[in-house]
């Protein structure tokens, strides 16, 4: 599905990603963890086209996408959920979903607000909102939503776009514990639909519930890439997060 090979990303003199290689199979759910500054979000930005790679290739379903602009990558099925909420707060919930549907090749968007095609898009948008229980607020501004609801809206919007690869950047950040379960449920829904999901998350106990694999990054390199159980029990994970135990080196 997604193949990353020897990816290097740098901003001026700062080398953020230093040769990342990783492959994700279709329908797989992969967690990406690592301490702050390890390059997790930059990796997602690089896959979505917002951070140019200096070296390396990215292939999506066998097609090279590293030279494509972000919108072309999105049209090829790459869906992105942003860390700091990528919804349009000044627009209604309905318009947020409409925007996604209107980008689809199978939707012919209408110019006139009262045209049949526009009405059809609105109806389809409502079904997406109903799925996450936000249809009651369809006409309200998205800024009126809570953090968790915003995240749900963003996930369902990416689903409306027709993406089959989801990049979720810290989906539970800024979300109440009660809403966390709703988000977990929507991730499970994505899995049951056969979507491929990549999740950045700090809470390893949260993602190990549904991840097939966990990739651990440190200083822009893949340190571990294994099943959640093996990654959790690996000593290197403790070292990355809590530092090396240097007691033996003391005099």
């Amino acid at each position, binding site marked *: 599905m997604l193949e990353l090979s020897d990816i290097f990303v740098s901003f001026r003199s700062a080398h953020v990603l230093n040769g990342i290689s990783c492959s994700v199979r279709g329908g797989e759910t992969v967690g990406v963890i690592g301490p702050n500054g390890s390059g997790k979000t930059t990796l997602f930005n690089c896959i979505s086209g*917002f951070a140019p790679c200096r070296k390396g290739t990215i292939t999506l379903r066998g097609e090279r996408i590293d030279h494509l602009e972000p919108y072309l990558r999105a049209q090829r099925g790459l869906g992105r959920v942003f860390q700091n909420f990528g919804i349009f707060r000044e627009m209604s919930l309905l318009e947020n979903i409409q925007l996604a549907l209107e980008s689809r090749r199978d939707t012919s968007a209408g110019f006139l607000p009262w045209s049949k095609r526009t009405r059809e898009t609105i109806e389809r948008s409502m079904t997406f909102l109903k799925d996450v229980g936000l249809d009651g607020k369809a006409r309200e501004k998205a800024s009126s939503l809570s953090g968790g609801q915003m995240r749900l809206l963003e996930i369902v919007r990416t689903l409306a776009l027709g993406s089959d690869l989801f990049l979720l950047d810290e989906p539970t950040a800024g979300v109440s514990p009660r809403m966390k379960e709703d988000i977990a449920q929507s991730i499970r829904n994505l899995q049951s639909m056969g979507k491929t999901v990549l999740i950045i998350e700090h809470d390893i106990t949260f993602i190990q519930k549904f991840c097939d694999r966990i990739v651990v990054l440190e200083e822009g390199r893949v340190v571990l890439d294994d099943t959640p159980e093996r990654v959790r029990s690996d000593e290197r994970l403790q070292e990355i997060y809590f530092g090396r135990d240097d007691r033996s080196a003391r005099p």
Partner: protein
Amino acid sequence: MTNMIEILTSDYGVHLAILVSLYLILAQSLNLTVGLGQLFNLAHVASYAVGAYATALLSTEHSASFTVCVAVSISLCAAFATLLGAISLRLTTDYFAIGTLAFSAVVSALLINWKSVTHGVLGIPGIPRPELLGIDFYDNGNFLALIGIFAVITQAILYCLYNSPCGRSLRALAEFERAAASLGKNTRRTRNIAFCVSSAFAGLAGSFFSYYLNYIDPSSFGLGEMVFILTIVIVGSPGSFGGVIGATLFLVLLPEPLRFLDISSTYLGPMRQLLHALILFGVVWWKRDKLFPQRRTV
């Protein structure tokens, strides 16, 4: 009350209605870029000038018909915007404003100095009123009907555009460009379309301006005019369709009562400008958080 009706049906009332129609076209089309797209477009008045001069030159020197003049003015402005957009839309925020302002200054300089074509500061006199279906458009009432129809059509088209997929994309990318791109929106193309459509309508307004005044010169297309159109959009709340219509009526008609006061015309002009400046300052101060929102990035 009877006085009001008299004023409204008099030549003066018709003149005001024509001005309102003209500014409705100009301000609502600027609202597309400045309001919806949050592109601080200061080249709108340049498009207005290009449209006006195209109509003036075609109708005086080539005796071109109304349809040809309007069509050429619109197409020329769309082409002008495509060229300008190709260069300036690579710039963002304040740099875009400076880029478009520079372009405006270039057009202004051309109008003054390219004397063989534009007649420089002397301007172009003797622009005939349109000839269409045998109606006498030298009668201001008829001319009002014509410009009124075009103003209504413009508002209708722009209303649909604001609520169309393209308008939505434009609003989305103004709020959070990366999120719009990750929804498959071609941000550059969307901005270009908005810029082109906005400029084309400015060209239409320019064309009517030439026809109405029968005489144009570069002084009508200066920075002052740009600031006035921008004031309408800002007072009407950028991006708000109804707000801009209301602000056009308010700002075009507001200084008119000053005429009836016993003030010499030496002071009247500056007083109107002062009034506009005060309103602009007040609105910008009052709505500063909404007018200059923080742009969101990843």
